[in-house]
């Protein structure tokens, strides 16, 4: 087996992660690596445990077993399984979006993006005390934060609506805003939970462009869950396939696309065909061995 790019310089290493809810094993001994500067896609049929993996990575769940190791570009490493969720986003710089969009709907677009820069601004305001008294460089820092927010509003082409409430936006724009908000935290790894869900083909194409832009110009690594195969095959560099909480395939999009186990998982097969595929697999593993 050749070593792939993501094995050499992984931003995220998931090792033997298992997540049990009572008797249900949602994720079973999952091991994979997400390469730095890659778009890694996590795919699989409904109920395969993709979102559970996401929640483990971002600290919303604590995995029953296993290690989650995040390596920054400067070499700092974080053991995500031991950190509370807000530190994973604040310190380890893992940002995420949600399957059902979670914007601050009563706040304006600009405010949404300013809240995302909370930690930096909090320090600049001298933990609020300096900001209230008007000492320290809070004003300048806030201006900087506004500039950053404006930069991202430009990127998602919503600058004109900066002062409108986020809840007023159409669905596709809300998805883009959620991504921009996550990017405003300055993440090392951006985790997107079904970013293309509910988008029309044109919006979906725009999303691809945005995500490629994030990878190439911001040099942020992406990890995404996606059902839309056109998005997955078009933009991802590396695909990991889950079924019933277990990894069944891991490789480049082209490799995964032709993997008989993936095809079987997605399309289902006749009993005869299962036998045929199993025989083939035996042959394959025989060859590999």
């Amino acid at each position, binding site marked *: 087996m050749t070593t792939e790019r993501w094995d050499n310089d992984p931003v995220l290493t998931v090792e033997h992660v298992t997540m049990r809810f009572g008797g249900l094993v949602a994720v079973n001994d999952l091991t994979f690596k997400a390469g730095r500067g890659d778009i890694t896609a996590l795919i699989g049929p409904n109920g395969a445990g993709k979102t559970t993996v996401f929640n483990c990575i971002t600290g919303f769940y604590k995995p029953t077993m296993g290690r989650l190791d995040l390596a920054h570009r400067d070499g700092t490493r974080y053991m995500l399984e031991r950190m509370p*969720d807000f530190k994973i*986003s604040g310190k380890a710089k893992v940002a995420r979006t949600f399957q059902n969009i979670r914007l601050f709907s009563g706040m304006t677009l600009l*405010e949404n993006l300013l*809240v995302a820069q*909370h930690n930096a601004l909090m320090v600049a305001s001298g933990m609020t005390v300096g900001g209230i008294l008007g000492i320290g460089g809070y004003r300048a820092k806030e201006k900087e934060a506004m500039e950053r927010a404006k930069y991202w509003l430009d990127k998602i082409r919503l600058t004109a609506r*900066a*002062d409108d409430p986020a809840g007023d936006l159409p669905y596709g724009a809300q998805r883009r805003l959620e991504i921009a908000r996550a990017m405003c935290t300055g993440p090392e790894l951006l985790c997107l939970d079904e970013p293309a869900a509910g988008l029309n083909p044109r919006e979906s194409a725009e999303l691809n462009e945005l995500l490629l832009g994030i990878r190439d110009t911001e040099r942020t690594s992406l990890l995404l869950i996606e059902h839309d195969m056109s998005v997955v095959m078009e933009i991802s560099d590396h695909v990991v396939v889950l079924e019933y909480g277990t990894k069944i395939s891991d490789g480049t999009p082209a490799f995964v696309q032709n993997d008989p186990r993936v095809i079987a998982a997605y399309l289902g097969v006749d009993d005869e065909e299962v036998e045929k595929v199993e025989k083939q697999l035996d042959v394959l593993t025989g060859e590999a061995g």
Partner: protein
Amino acid sequence: MTDTAHATSRPGPDYAKAAKDALLAGIIALGIFGPLVGLKTEQNMSNELIVRNDMASALIIVAIVMAGRFLLSAFVFPRMGARGKKPTVANAIDEGVKPDRTKLYARLGLLLLFLYPIIVVSLLGFQGSLKWVDNFGIQILIYVMLGWGLNIVVGLAGLLDLGYVAFYAVGAYSYALLAINFDLSFWVLLPVAGILAAMWGVILGFPVLRLRGDYLAIVTLAFGEIIRLVLINFRELTNGSAGISSIPKVTLFGIPFDASPDGFAKMFDLPLSSAYYKIFLYYLILLLALLTAYVTIRLRRMPIGRAWEALREDEVACRSLGINTTNTKLTAFAIGAMFAGFAGSFFAARQGFVSPESFVFMESAVIVAIVVLGGMGSMIGVAVAAAAMIGGTELLRELTFLKAVFGPEFNPDQYRMLLFGLAMVGIMIWRPRGFVSARQPTAFLFERKAVSGSLVKEGHG
């Protein structure tokens, strides 16, 4: 279009329907007011409860209800039906208050507040002004301040705190006990009371951090009761339900307001009157309330204030953005409690007497009602609601002319709670999100546009 055409072309009011409507309303009103107003229980000489019949008053009320309902359904409802056909989306947009006008109202209101004692004194003289400055001015401003303080916790952070009066009590007792036992002045104890109340806010905050919604409300309610029960039962310290009396008054930087030679009146060669002290207290509570408003307005533009509002909107998203929700909630509790502590120490100094009686659950409920009626998160709305609710109930005492209608034994003050409830139901129907439901954004790129209340969340409790 067809709807409006239909409504306007209708030939005259439908009296038969209106009469039927009025009859129905009359029956309901009789069911409610018959027992409530018509039957009175009184204690006689041998301490027995006897029922006294007062059906005449009840029937008068029923008659008023029927007449009102008749007029409404004959003349008002058909017109409202024609007008109310506007699409709801348009209504939601209309709700947005023009920010420049809001600012103008705020300035005018502020000016009025500063001139209020002067106006009252010039109209009624020093002695006549006492009631208006003390019962109305100071009383309302205390609740405005409490409302603004609770607004941080409920309106901004979205944490429903039903035990807010506990912090008010902490502030009041802190001042009372420290002033009596250690002979410290009000100006030293004001910040101390604030800090102590904030400390108790954090102490309450810790156990309730994991709770949301109804559960949070119940635990805060229990906390309020615990504080009150401790005040009643810790007799050695608090003197139990008898309360603490002869609490020192506030001095104007060392000048006392009394008849002594170095007192305020003598010093400025003025005739002796208690009105000076009341006017002084009025300006003191006004400044304290404005301090609350100023700090809240500043805090909303700070990262912490935005984090509070974000917490109200979506706590999970907050954590995904690296916001420490624990600290954020605790600061909301602490700062809200601090202002209650300030108000409490002012209350103790003004009354000269504190007892657990003043810190019952009803007080918490009134403050929460003020915040909800005013529109959660809105400073002006809360101030208006406090004026309406506290001023309104005080005003009831003044309505002596009602005695002419209902007989000399009628005491409008007894109907306080009934009217209170009716007013709340009415306002919640008319404006379900409070007087000022629109939210002012804390930052803008091009122009400040108010956010419609229908998009703003109430928080998880």
